[in-house]
């Protein structure tokens, strides 16, 4: 489903976090949301999956304002995979976690029917967690957990996927596998990605957020210009499409001189060379 964000203003504890954000993800598009720490990426996602109420502007999924949909109706359209930190899932198995994705499809009295079970089984298979199905979720590794949470999101049968740093803590192979999985779903996706290389690889389009506003948006190569990379991320870098069709970013040896806060020149970006990658 198409996602349209128009003139979005969000304040948290009276501080404006998002100002006049407008963006669009067309049906089937994978749109990457990039920007330094604190630029408002997660806040934007929270507004999309209805956890935050905007102070102004609208978020439309499939043409309907999400604030006008019931929580359940909204969750039948939009599924989110969030960072794993929260929750207290001790005692739930992987299969039970994935089955939570069926919650928005039922009322208080609804019980899982054969259709629900086959949807859950399908999501488990697609994410390759069949062998983990009876394990306690808390006993899994970070990468396994992310795949389980993605399976839960797919069990929701969403028309829009919202991903927050899905590939954090994953090794390179697991990242590629997960990205391929998301590509294969064909579902419209809005993904916050810290790693620009990964964003360039996965996404059809990128939106760059900086201090709560959109500073660039469009096809990957149009957005990742040396100028944007320098001004927003504080690094000397350039991006180009290689012969294999993959966009790669080459970083300079040093971050650009300037008065940027140390944390915003984030952990893994500055100084990192473009290590030749094996294509998955």
């Amino acid at each position, binding site marked *: 489903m198409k996602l349209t964000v128009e003139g979005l203003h969000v304040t948290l504890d009276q501080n404006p976090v998002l100002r006049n954000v407008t963006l669009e993800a067309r049906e089937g598009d994978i749109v990457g949301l990039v920007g330094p720490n604190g630029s408002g990426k997660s806040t934007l996602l929270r507004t999309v999956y209805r956890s935050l109420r905007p102070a102004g502007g609208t978020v439309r999924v499939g043409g309907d304002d999400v604030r006008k949909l019931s929580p359940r109706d909204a969750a039948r359209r939009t599924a989110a995979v969030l960072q794993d930190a*929260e*929750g*207290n899932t001790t005692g*739930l*198995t992987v299969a039970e976690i994935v089955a939570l994705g069926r919650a928005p499809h039922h009322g208080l009295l609804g019980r899982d029917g054969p259709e629900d079970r086959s949807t859950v089984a399908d999501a488990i298979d697609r994410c390759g967690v069949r062998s983990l199905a009876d394990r306690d979720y808390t006993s899994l590794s970070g990468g396994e957990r992310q795949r389980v949470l993605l399976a839960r999101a797919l069990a929701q049968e969403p028309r829009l996927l919202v991903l927050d740093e899905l590939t954090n803590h994953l090794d390179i192979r697991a990242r590629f596998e997960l990205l391929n999985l998301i590509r294969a779903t064909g579902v419209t996706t809005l993904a916050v990605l810290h790693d620009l290389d990964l964003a360039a690889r996965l996404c059809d389009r990128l939106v760059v957020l900086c201090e709560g506003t959109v500073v660039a948006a469009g096809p990957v190569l149009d957005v990742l210009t040396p100028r944007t990379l320098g001004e927003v991320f504080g690094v000397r870098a350039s991006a180009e499409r290689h012969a294999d069709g993959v966009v790669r970013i080459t970083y300079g040896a040093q971050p650009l001189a300037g008065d940027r806060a140390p944390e915003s020149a984030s952990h893994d970006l500055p100084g990192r060379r473009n290590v030749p990658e094996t294509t998955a």
Partner: protein
Amino acid sequence: MIVAISIGAVNVPLGEVWGIVLHHVTGAGAAPSDPALDQIVWNFRTPRVVLAALVGAGLAVSGAVLQTVVSNPLADPIVLGFSYGATLGAVLVITLGGGVALAGLGVSAAAFVGAVAAGALVFALGRRRGRMAPTRLVLAGVAVGYVFLSATSFVQLQATPTELRTVMFWMLGSVAGAQWDQLPAVSAVVLATTTLLSLFGRRLNVLLAGDESATALGIDVNRLRAALLVLSALLTGTVIAVAGSIGFVGLMIPHLVRLTIGADHRRLLPLTALLGAVYLVLVDLLSRVVNRPNELPLGILTALLGAPFFLWLLRRNKGLD
């Protein structure tokens, strides 16, 4: 239950018990030969065992729900202040003997009012801008509990030794005073809230995923928390009102069931109710036998019996590492 009915200060043969209970429930069979035996079995023991089962189920279910609602494994009716609210209500009536302000309120009614008042306070104080954050809720509960506890201690200072003894027995809990006429109300509340809470099973599961994920899964987290808190305060208030503040059941039974069959609330809640009921019937039975013909308060035995088993299970379980 039949075994529990037959054993006590006077032992009644199992067959007799069956006959008497069957006769009263279905009207079948011969009327009991010995009216004294009939009196003991039907008017003292049976309501007592039924009440113990209801109270055990209610406390355990309430604990299970609260642990999920505030996302804290230590939560139970005591930690959230409900029990202390009930205690203050009861102690006020016992020591002031139904003074002016409380005239007409029995100990049970006062305890119920106290528990629900504590629940309402936690509810009001745990909310900020319409959001009920789990940590704030649990801390509000603890603080409210301490306030009620201080007030209770202050009231106790004014009490006579006899009143103090009554207070102490009440605080340790008992189902000895069970009577048929209080059972319909208690069983209605326990059955209705337990059923309703079990219906919320899937949503409780979603709550385990954390607030943000639950929101993305279509749950109105704050409304759900509010509803669950109200239901569990009602449930706790009702059972504490008739049986006193019995500790440990609400904390331990849910964990016991979780460690055995997992955390899916659709199984967890019914089984927790069942195990809570069985456990308190057994504890009540022991409380009548260990020190015959005197009885021990339930609160002493619930922890004394349960804790070692619980600790054993805790050490054996790998999932908690």
